[in-house]
């Protein structure tokens, strides 16, 4: 082996973080889509039957609507979302230099509202915030996830990974216990997936509405009878970032449908 080969191989090795016991190797990662039955898949695949598309359409009109005392619409700064927003959601949560920490797409939308539109923040899980983030993330449908690649994000990815491995709550279970070690099995008859974040915000039939990834994480936390972290808390952002880096290479599906 030439020196150059050896260096290249070493560099490759260093670039891929070593997997902890139980972590899913990249080529075995599967979206929640692959765990669903044919009916739910068909609902997601056909835009005319996918209920999440109604939110995307709402988001599209909010994109061009002037808002806040600056009287500006998202489109006034970003133009046509089909080109300007393509691939953006696949990189989020992304490191924000001014704040020196990663921010989620929801937080980015509210930062734009505060600084560029002089508008009040949209509450978490409100219809308008879900619609805007669904519209923006929809522009990345099919784009491979790369969030967490930014070297500045690494400490936060590591924090998220620690939280994923941490047992918590009265039932004393960690995310990894279900989503790394027991996917493909069933909890009270319902399939457990790998917990991949590829489709958010997504339409969950159980919720009968669109919901954010944070809503999903909070319900897993309540499920193990843990105190769920607040929306937008550094812990939820770090978990979200870890989940996205764990899904590296999987295509975005927003708006997905889940049972």
């Amino acid at each position, binding site marked *: 082996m030439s020196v150059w080969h050896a260096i290249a191989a070493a560099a490759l090795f260093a670039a891929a973080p070593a997997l902890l016991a139980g972590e899913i190797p990249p080529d075995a990662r599967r979206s929640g889509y692959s765990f669903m039955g044919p009916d739910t898949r068909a609902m997601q695949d056909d835009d005319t039957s996918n209920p999440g598309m109604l939110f995307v359409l709402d988001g599209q009109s909010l994109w061009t609507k002037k808002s806040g005392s600056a009287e500006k619409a998202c489109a006034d700064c970003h133009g046509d979302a089909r080109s300007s927003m393509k691939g953006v959601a696949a990189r989020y949560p992304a490191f924000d230099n001014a704040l020196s920490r990663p921010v989620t797409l929801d937080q980015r939308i509210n930062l734009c509202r505060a600084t560029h539109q002089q508008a009040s923040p949209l509450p978490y899980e409100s219809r308008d915030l879900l619609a805007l983030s669904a519209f923006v993330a929809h522009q990345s449908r099919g784009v491979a996830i790369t969030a967490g690649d930014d070297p500045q994000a690494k400490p936060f990815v590591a924090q998220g990974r620690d939280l994923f491995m941490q047992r918590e709550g*009265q039932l*004393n*279970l960690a995310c990894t216990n279900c989503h790394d070690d027991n996917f493909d*099995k069933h909890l*009270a*008859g319902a399939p*457990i997936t790998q917990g991949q974040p590829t489709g958010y915000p997504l339409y969950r039939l159980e919720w009968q509405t669109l919901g954010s990834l944070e809503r999903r994480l909070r319900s897993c936390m309540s499920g193990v009878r843990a105190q769920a972290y607040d929306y937008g808390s550094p812990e939820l952002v770090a978990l979200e970032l870890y989940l996205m880096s764990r899904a590296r290479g999987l295509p975005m599906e927003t708006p997905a449908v889940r049972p």
Partner: protein
Amino acid sequence: MAKSFVHGVALIAASLAFVSVARADELASYKVAGDGIVESLTGAPGDAVRGRALVLARTTTCILCHSGPFPETRFQGDLAPDLTGAGNRWSASQLRLRLVDASRFNAETIMPSYYRNDDLVRVGRNFTGKPILSAAEIEDIVAFLATLRD
């Protein structure tokens, strides 16, 4: 003056309430002998009929992970061994310790410790200081599992 008196009474009442809550949450002490707990946690035998109903109740969480001889429900888990025949495989004493603290058998187990209220992280507000099951519930479930013989 009158106001601070009322405050004082309220404070005392509040701290009394706190003390009695803390007492209510104290766990019955038990003695581990070998790989089991020989004596009933309540001092009395459990009720197997109530135990069966408890195992089937979703809030008890057993059948989230386990399946068993329960033809009436489709919603059974497959993260853990089928409970059929558990009474052949284990004595009541072993079953009791398994429910109280399964991590003693296998430190990595996903099976929760049902009678424990410490060393837990970020327990939800409604659950802090409480074991998942009461001593009486554990005894009922032990009595039921002991009847599972094939």
